[in-house]
Each structure stands twice: as C-alpha cells, then as structure tokens.
C-alpha cells in the first residue's frame, strides 16, 4: 500500500517546493513594493493578491482554467509559442499552489517589512548601497521573522492545496495526484485505511519540512 504514497509524496513535494520558491521570489518583490513604495494601482495589486484567499478554491481553480486553457488568455499564447498545453500537468498545479499561497506570503512579509526601521535603510544608502542591495542585505534580513512565517504558511498551504489544483491539474494518477488529491480519492472510494496512511505520511512530511525551516531560521543569523 505504501508504494501508492510514493508518487503523490514526490509530486507534492515537487509542486510545493517549486511553488514556494516562486512565491518567495514574487512575494518578496511585491511585499517590498507594497511596504516601501507609493505607486498608482498599489491598492489594486494589494486586492488582486489577496483575492484568491477569499474565493472558494474551486472558483479560483475555475478562473485559472479559463486563464490557462487553450482558449484562455495565457494558455493560448503559451500554446502558440511552445505548443505546450499547461492544463492537467504538474506545472499547472504549481501555478494553482502559487496563486493560493501568494497572499499569505505577501500579507505576512509586507507587514514585516513595514516594521523595519527605515533609518537603517538610510544608513545603508549613505554607505553607497543601492535600494536593491539595501533591500536584500538590510531590509529583508531584518524582516526575517515575518518572511519565515510567510514561507512556512505558503509551503503548508501549497502542500494542503486541493480545490484549485483539482480544477487545473486534474487528479491523474502518476501525473498530478498530489497527496491531497490522493487522500481525497482514497477517502471517496471508501478506501479509508489508505486515506489514513496518506494523512499520516502527509503530516510527517509537513513536520519534517517545518523542522527544516526552523533550522533555516537558526542559521540565518540576525
């Protein structure tokens, strides 16, 4: 029975890790801009980023399918350029996880960045460091705790993602059946013992990744 968990575990980790990397990169950028810059459309960005949180995941997924499908704005251009249909692939799952966990990263991190003493940024400027360098080596390290919190939340959310993934990536054994989807399938088909095993594995995996994150925190000295 355990071998039925190996692929879902692998694909879940792959999707969650990739999505988290994306979320961190994009999230840090957006958070920094939201916290430190004034620009037109700032509120709009804020709202757009938060929206996936209030929508039922299925709706988010539906909107993503419309966007990414062969007739969708993004899906069409992607298909025309590469011949690659993204829907029902694990890449689509990464996008779904990314969209639903981005708000967690952005809210958490922009609050943390907003709490960093601007004076220290000014000091870095007088020492000749550009805004980018200062953001990377002064602001973000000082917002560390919030960033780590956002990272943990995003990763956990990506791991637990279900509704949107189901819509855009399908629930295809050997391709896109993440742990969440596998648990769902096992549970639906009355295979409760498999469902239980999968839940236990999912929980253990999450604990391990959270412990790893904690290690990361300790390393990153402040």
């Amino acid at each position, binding site marked *: 029975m355990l071998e039925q968990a190996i692929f879902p575990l692998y694909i879940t980790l792959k999707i969650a890790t990739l999505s988290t990397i994306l979320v961190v990169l994009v999230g840090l950028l957006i958070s920094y801009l939201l916290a430190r810059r004034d620009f037109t459309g700032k509120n709009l960005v804020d709202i757009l980023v938060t929206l996936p949180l209030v929508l039922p995941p299925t709706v988010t997924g539906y909107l993503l399918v419309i966007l990414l499908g062969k007739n969708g704005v993004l899906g069409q251009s992607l298909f025309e350029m590469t011949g690659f249909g993204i829907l029902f692939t694990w890449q689509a799952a990464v996008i779904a996880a990314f969209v639903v966990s981005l708000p967690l990263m952005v809210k958490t991190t922009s609050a943390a960045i907003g709490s960093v003493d601007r*004076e*220290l940024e*000014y*000091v*870095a*400027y*007088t*020492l*000749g*460091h*550009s805004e980018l360098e200062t953001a990377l080596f*002064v602001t973000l*390290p*000082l917002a*560390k705790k919030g960033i780590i919190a956002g990272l943990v939340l995003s990763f956990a959310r990506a791991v637990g993602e279900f509704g949107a993934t189901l819509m855009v990536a399908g629930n295809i054994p050997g391709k896109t059946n993440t742990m969440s989807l596998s648990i769902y399938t096992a549970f639906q088909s009355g295979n409760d013992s498999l469902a239980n095993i999968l839940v236990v594995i999912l929980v253990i995996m999450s604990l391990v990744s959270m412990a790893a994150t904690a290690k990361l925190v300790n390393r990153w*000295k*402040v």
Partner: protein
Amino acid sequence: MSGNIRVDIKKRYSGQEDAPDFNLDVNFTASNELVVLFGRSGSGKTTTLRCIAGLGKPDMGFIEVNGKVYFDSELKKNLSPQDRRPGYVFQNYALFPHMSVAKNITYGLKGKSDAAKEQRLHEMLGLMHITGLQNEYPSRLSGGQKQRVALARALAPNPDILLLDEPFSALDMVVRMRLRERIHSIQETLDIPVLFITHNPVEAFTLADKVVVLHEGSVHQEGRPEDVFYNPCNRHVAELVGVSNIFDADFAGKSEYGFVLNTDSISITTTTNVDADSSYSWGVRPENVHLHPAREDISGCNVFSTTVHSVVNRGASRVVAVDIPGGGSVLLSEMDNRNFGKLDIGPGSECLVEIDPRDVLVFALEEPAG
C-alpha cells in the same frame, strides 16, 4: 558665497495640536575645515545634518559640497544619499543589528577586496580602541562601544565629507581626548569638510576651525571659536558658550573707561559702545570675574565689595557665587584651586570683585535672530 560647503535651506515641521511649528532656516558656508554646529537641544542641528546627507529634504534652498550641487530646489535637483556618500555618525548610532561589528564597519567598503576590507577593519578597530569586539553583535555592546563602531563605520570608506552627530557623547574622557585628536588629523589628512555636533563647549572650542551657532532653527552666529566664545553676538549665544552671568541693566551714562550700565545697586562699565535709547543686558564669563581678599586695595572701575554666597568645588576648579549688592541675584566666579586657596574665603566671607571692562559683554535685549 564661497567655500567647499554652502548650505542655505529652509524646512518646516508642523507642530502637533497647539504646539508651535519648527522652522529651520539655516545658511552658512565653510571651506575644508572642521565646523562645529553648536546649539541648544532642539535647535535644528540634526535636521541640518540630515538635509546635507540627503536623508531629509529641505522645503527649499541649496546645498553644495566640494563643488557638487547636492540639492537645489530651483533646479529641482536632489542627489540621492548614495551619490552624496557622506560619512555619517548618527546621533542614535543606527548600527545594523543583524551584522557583526566587523560587518558593520566594512559595510561601506563596497567593491574593495576582502584583504583590503580586513586591513581597513583592523585599522579602524585599533583607531577606536575596540579591537577584540569584531565578532560581537551590536546588542552585546556597551553604549560607548556602539558609538565607536558607528564612528568606525562612517570613517572607514574615507568619505568626501564627515557629518558627526555628537559622536563622542557616550565616551569616557580618555578615549574622547584621543579621538578628538584623530578626527582633527583625519580632517587635515583627507582635507575634507567635517561638520561636528557637540554640546561640550571645550570640545567645540578645541576642535573647531569654525563654529556655527544655531538657535531655534536659525544661525545666530558663525565664526572662529574665539569670535564666538569671546564675543557672542547675543544672549542666546552667550549662554551657550558659558557666559553664565547675564543680567538686565539700564543705561547710566558714559565714564572715562567706557559706557556705564546699572544692575541693582552696582554700576558696570564696559568698553562696548552702548546706545542710550535701547535696553540691554550685560554678561561676563565666570573665569573673568576675579575675586580679591576684602582687605586688598584695588583701584579701577568694576570693583565692588560683597559677600560670598556659596562655593562649589568642580574638581579642577572652584565656582564661587557672590551676592550682587542690592539685588537677589548672584554672580559666579570661577578660579583654579590654588588661587581659591590663596583667597581663603568661604560662604559669608567678605571679598572684592573685579571685572575688566573689556570682559563685559553687552547684548541688546530681544535682539532679532542674526
């Protein structure tokens, strides 16, 4: 206008609720010399430094350093702090809490090799007497140690201009004296302008090539330390530079020695020209108030006999307060311990006061800002 620094800026902070606004309106020039900004707490010294560094934007005006226009409200020019790169010691140090002392100090050495950084670090640690602390984090430093790290960080990149906001306030006398010399020689070696804020009059006097006195946001006096300390242009400046005896007076006429002013029942003669129609106050530095034993026979003006009110030992000197006859106020006289010993006086003793008319400073009352 000439000089390597030209500052002429205005900036307003509006006060909360019924508190008054603060208006900065500062205008001074200086060449490659050490300029001490001197002024009461809240007079706008830090604000001025921040504007020069590019951390605060003046509402209008002009800042030029070493031929480079830093700010010009007419040309809408405002260089970024990165393009100004001042060596700035912040009043509250503003060390990076997440960086070690070594990292803090070398953080301004962008683009230098690791070896060069290491070497400069060790120079700075030695200069600041904090060798051994390089691996500590700021949270584990004492106040004075933090201040020295902040100094080291500002000096390390050999900046074009140094802005030092009370850089020695948390240091003991021994280190302070040594660092005063260092700053002086750094200024001379690098031949850069240094703006230095201090509340210590001796520090101001010994360090400064030029003193700029700020009061309530504007420059009241600007000149060599001797000018400012010995000839303060008004009461505010006088108080700041240690003229602790200041009294209101009425014009009483002219005598063979100069002009005469009356305060309580004493008459004070001054060599300064005084106009009969205005109101004045006069002042004298306590070390220029000379005391003599009551039995001594001294002639000349500004000599009167009085009683000793109290004596304060300041360690290296004594301050004797004597009553001003006919009034409730006291006059302070400062002298070294040996002279005090020779006087043989104490509270209640009789003695003679003597003040040289040339040491009597006169200020118009409520003189407008200079």
